């Protein structure tokens, strides 16, 4: 048994495997299949100040080794989460990451203020490609990333701030640095890549929103490159995700510089994906004589 515990911004995670936002709800449903206290953490469904109904259906489509989604931030509001789901997640003893989005800078400030001190991290979704009012406008350019980060950080006196970067941008290094400059305590990436699936017979996009965010196994090479770039352009911790389906995938992200990983779409293919990934990471570390997972973080040797 290798040591799997990691520490990010002073928060201890029993292992580096975190459920990715939007694929795991608030944990209750998966907890009917396995006890989610085995996880390192959970990033909640993206929340807003007000409840939202999200986009029309269909909200999902499939491509080869990828899926596309455009849920459009359906959520019951941060207040509802605090009242109804927070205690359940706390009882599980896993790191709780509140994923949040907003229309305006004030929204980001307000939702961060609500959650300050209640959760282990606030993860700023400034990269949702599926709603106009999903923060995407803030997530493209370094200047606006720094600004939304600053506003959010000023509402967070106790809880560390994680800024989730979009891959649909010009420069990951510049955007990562902008988040750091704005006061981010750590960075997560990647959110989904904007894509389209077409129904030839209907001559229409499959998804009602026309475009959707691409995720799943097929995006892993892009995600690895971006995580590597981010980890090598900032000093704050980086949490990596995008197409992770196995323990070795997760370890590749850690080699590229991630201190922890998030797993999303793989939960749909295999409900037990995350417990399996944790076991597979352990097995690889054991078979390679690595005693502590932290030893492999950021040890990629470039050619």
């Amino acid at each position, binding site marked *: 048994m290798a040591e799997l515990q990691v520490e990010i911004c002073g928060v201890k995670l029993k292992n580096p495997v975190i459920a990715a936002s*939007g*694929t*795991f*709800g608030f944990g*209750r*449903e*998966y907890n*009917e*299949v396995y006890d989610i206290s085995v996880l390192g953490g959970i990033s909640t*469904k993206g929340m807003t100040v007000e409840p939202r*109904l*999200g986009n029309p*259906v*269909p*909200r*999902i*489509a*499939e491509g*080869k*080794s*990828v*899926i596309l*989604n455009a*849920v459009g931030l*359906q959520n019951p509001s941060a207040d509802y989460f605090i009242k109804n789901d927070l205690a359940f997640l706390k009882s599980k003893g896993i790191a709780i990451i509140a994923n949040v989005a907003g229309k305006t800078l004030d929204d980001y400030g307000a939702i961060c203020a609500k959650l300050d001190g209640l959760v282990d991290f606030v993860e700023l979704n400034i990269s949702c490609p599926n709603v106009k009012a999903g923060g995407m406008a803030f997530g493209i350019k370094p200047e606006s990333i720094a600004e939304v980060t600053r506003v959010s950080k000023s509402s967070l006196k106790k809880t560390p701030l994680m800024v989730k970067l979009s891959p649909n941008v010009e420069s990951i290094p510049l955007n990562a640095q902008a988040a750091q400059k704005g006061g981010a305590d750590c960075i997560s990436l990647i959110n989904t890549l904007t894509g389209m699936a077409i129904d030839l017979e209907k001559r229409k996009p499959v998804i009602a929103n026309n475009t959707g965010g691409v995720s*799943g*196994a097929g995006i892993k090479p892009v995600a690895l490159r971006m995580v590597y770039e981010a980890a090598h352009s900032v000093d704050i911790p980086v949490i990596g995700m995008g197409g992770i389906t196995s323990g070795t995938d997760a370890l590749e992200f850690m080699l590229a510089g991630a201190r922890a990983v998030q797993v999303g*779409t*793989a*939960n*749909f*293919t*295999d*409900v*037990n994906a995350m417990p399996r990934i944790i076991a597979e990471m352990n097995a690889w570390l054991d078979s390679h004589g690595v005693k502590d997972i932290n030893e492999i973080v950021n040890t990629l040797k470039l050619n």
Partner: protein
Amino acid sequence: MKDLKATVKSNERIAENIYSLTVTLPESAGEIHGGQFVNISTGDSSHLLRRPLGVAKVEGNDVTVCYQIKGSGTQNLATLSSGASVNILLPLGNGFNISGYKNVAVIGGGVGVFPLVATVREHCKNINFYTYVGFRNKSAVCLLDELEKSKTLTVVTDDGSYGKKGNAVEAFFADAANVKADAIIACGPPVMLKVLKTEMQKRNVKTPCLVSLEERMGCGLGACLVCVCKKHDGQNARVCKDGPVFDIDEVEL
């Protein structure tokens, strides 16, 4: 709810483009009711999503689903032969809760017939079923032997090549005067359910009616909010978790 590695027992063509797949579970998945569904892997690892299919039959640890070949997932499912293994998450959703009723009308169209089969099998000892099923044409007709457990069984086809020409909703209303159903259950294409709802309103039929909906799914267990339908109260419901069976008056069709 369990995710199990099941073994294909049989996978046979039962009508044009329609297959019946029976898998043996390695252990019991608990009680499974008619109207509940499974989320099954296609056997092709480039498909990251499982396919939701209604349970058509349960016998011990053998579970049967019937599917129409639509796209690449069901195409791949059809290539699986006995002995192959599939991952199957089950049972999912709520199912038809009709215990307590005595006379139930069953309306099924196309692939919507399959989940109704399990319901008829489950309750036929205690409930009189008046069943109306519609298929495209003669070559699509299947599973009638299973539905024979109904008190009456009416089969119609779009082109009249088997039974009368027409659809299942018409067949039901044509018979409605003779049948005193205290509940209606229905499963079929969206337009069929819509017509059923409009006709019930037009004819002022107040019989409780449960319909099973279809929507594209991600997780299949209520976490991702991909599969929603609209309710008349303005809220969304998850087809996979709050459904797939809803009161016809509750949801927008």
